[in-house]
């Protein structure tokens, strides 16, 4: 299958006052119809610049971008808008307008100068609203929608452009967790059902690794790593890109860990979901999780009645994790005092 979007030795960056500053270079990526790509990288590495260049909103500093085989610099603005649609981080403030009117704006590149919609245009708008599951929002005022609902409408607007490629720059940046999951799940379904090539930039590592078909990872040196999430986890490039001096990304459970372990080891035993939660409590309080109780300063056992802990200062038990955290903090106080003496 031919690629919807393909770059050839693309270099992106800023150009101002005649000087140009290249942020990323030698980018060779492609997206197929129906594929969901997540672009990952730390803030400021050039994700937005790359997205804007792919969308034709920023000129490439080198190389080329092709949509369905056609170089975007040779396309008219209208042709480009019929092939590529974008959703941006920025909140739109359109004033008073029902949501479906905003989706209708997506027909912009397809209708004549008068902007009047044909029956076919209206059918496409309706289809776009249904595609993002926003039937219940269509008649509502944009102002009254939550951020997540509004972003959903913005995706419908982008779909109404009937693009081959949908580019989303941090579309979920200011959304709460559940809205974020919903948006990405919707995008994944849209990619499959509508055969659209979807690229979204995100700094939500966990969600991207779960949902994406392909990850484009920009590491600290500005190199692009491409592969399935599992490939990039397995070869360590994700851990390398996101670990810092004080935090480590653990590929196994896909979470960040604080690296300092000043107090020593702790052991958690028992069964159930509570074991991993007790571990995160201990890690947060500055302990390294040991594989055996031997040499552990704090030992916690989890059973159906709650937690039971043994430490230097004494024993404790309880039902809430807040109590466990308090117990552990008392322990760390004792340990710190012993260390001083």
């Amino acid at each position, binding site marked *: 299958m031919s690629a919807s979007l393909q770059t050839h030795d693309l270099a992106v960056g800023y150009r101002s006052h005649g000087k140009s500053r290249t942020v990323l270079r030698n980018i060779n990526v492609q997206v197929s119809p129906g594929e969901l790509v997540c672009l990952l990288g730390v803030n400021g590495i050039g994700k937005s610049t790359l997205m804007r260049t792919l969308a034709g909103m920023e000129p490439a500093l080198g190389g080329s971008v092709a949509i369905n085989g056609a170089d975007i610099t040779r396309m008219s*603005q209208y042709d480009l*808008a019929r092939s*590529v649609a974008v959703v941006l981080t920025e909140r739109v*403030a359109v004033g008073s307008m029902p949501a479906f*009117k905003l989706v209708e704006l997506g027909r912009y590149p397809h209708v004549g100068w008068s902007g009047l919609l044909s029956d076919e245009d209206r059918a496409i708008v309706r289809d776009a609203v*249904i595609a993002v*599951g926003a039937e219940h929002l269509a008649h509502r005022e944009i102002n009254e929608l939550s951020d997540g609902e509004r972003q959903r409408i913005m995706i419908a607007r982008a779909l109404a452009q009937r693009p081959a490629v949908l580019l989303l720059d941090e579309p979920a940046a200011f959304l709460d967790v559940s809205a974020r999951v919903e948006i990405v799940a919707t995008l994944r379904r849209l990619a499959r059902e509508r055969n659209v090539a979807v690229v979204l930039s995100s700094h939500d590592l966990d969600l991207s690794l779960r949902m994406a078909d392909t990850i484009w990872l920009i590491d600290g040196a500005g190199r692009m790593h491409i592969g399935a999430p599992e490939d990039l986890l397995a070869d360590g490039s994700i851990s390398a890109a996101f670990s810092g001096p004080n935090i480590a990304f653990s590929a196994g459970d896909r979470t960040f860990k604080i690296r300092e372990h000043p107090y020593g080891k702790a052991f958690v035993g028992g069964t159930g979901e509570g074991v991993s939660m007790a571990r995160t409590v201990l890690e947060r309080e500055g302990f390294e999780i040991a594989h055996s109780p031997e040499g552990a300063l704090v030992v916690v056992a989890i059973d159906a009645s*709650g937690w039971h802990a043994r430490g230097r200062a004494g024993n404790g038990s309880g039902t809430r994790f807040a109590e466990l955290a308090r117990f552990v903090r008392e322990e760390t106080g004792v340990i710190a005092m012993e260390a001083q003496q």
Partner: protein
Amino acid sequence: MSIWPSGFLMAFNHQEQRGSGNYDLDIPAMAASMRTRHTLVLALALFLLLVAFVAAICLGSTAIPLQSVIGALSGQLANGNPDFDIVLSIRLPRAITACLAGAALSVAGLQMQTLMRNPLADPFVLGITSGASLGVALVVLASGSTIGAFLSSGMGLGGGFAIVGAATLGGLLVLVPVLAISVRLQNPSTVLIFGLMTGYAVSAFVTLLVAGARPDQLERWIAWGFGSFSAVTWTELQVLAPVAMLGLVVACVSIKPLNALLLGENYARSMGLNTRAMRLVTMAAASMLAGVVTAFCGPIGFLGVAVPHMARAMLKSSDHRVLVPATILLGALTALLAQLVSLLPTNLGVLPLNAVTALIGAPVVVFVILRSRNGVFAG
């Protein structure tokens, strides 16, 4: 009793909520229900405009009965009849001027509000009118004629276009830096203060220019500064009408891109709009509209900022397809009403038009500021 907070994972398991399957999504019906309201508002505005227009011709220092007005307009009254003269050479051009000026200033305000994404933008507040005054003052001084001469009838068509051109350029002189600032600083109040200060600076310059004028010239300059629709005769209308109409036509033709700009320049560009060209055309049109009105009627304030908000509030919509025609109708109506109010018999004689429009417009501006926490533009 479980120790594990059961709701903890809910947020993550919360799968996307799709609209309930039985939801009836009838977009044409939704559009039709909006259209009903919009048609009603436009029809009402048109009706009131006609009533106000007739009132503006009948009412004045001498009341003329409707019969005589109809007689004068249909040519039944003889030339030389005092009613005929009053209706045809004073009140009719004055009413037409009020309509054109009101529509022009209001549409210029609407264009600037959308272009700058600033609910308080308008030609007067942002100093465009001051810039236009500067253009007028410069032309009048450079041509060697007296300051007040352009108000007298001896101007001629060429002089008229020269003054309109100078006023438009003067308006652009202020609008270009204000727009540049508004692109760089997204904060509407900063832009507003910048516009106000530019306006003050330009006004101060104009004051210096006219300071040397003779007392009678100064008096006329000040009278011009009060704003008036009365100084425009049929001769001046030959310039004012086509220029204002051209600006209004530009606004009507750019309804589609204005709507795209509601989403901001980035989105507008991504949908295929040439934002740079659009910005240039809109700036030129807004300056021309504000410039031509300022040249002939003086610097008239607050219509530009107030009328688009009145239109939005009545229509409950920011869709330019209805907002532009409603702004034209309501702008003309408001200007006619202001004109009628300024003629109210008081012991001050004819009230300065600027005072009347300020009394109408200032409360609207205050209302917009008070409400802008929740947002006229902001969500």
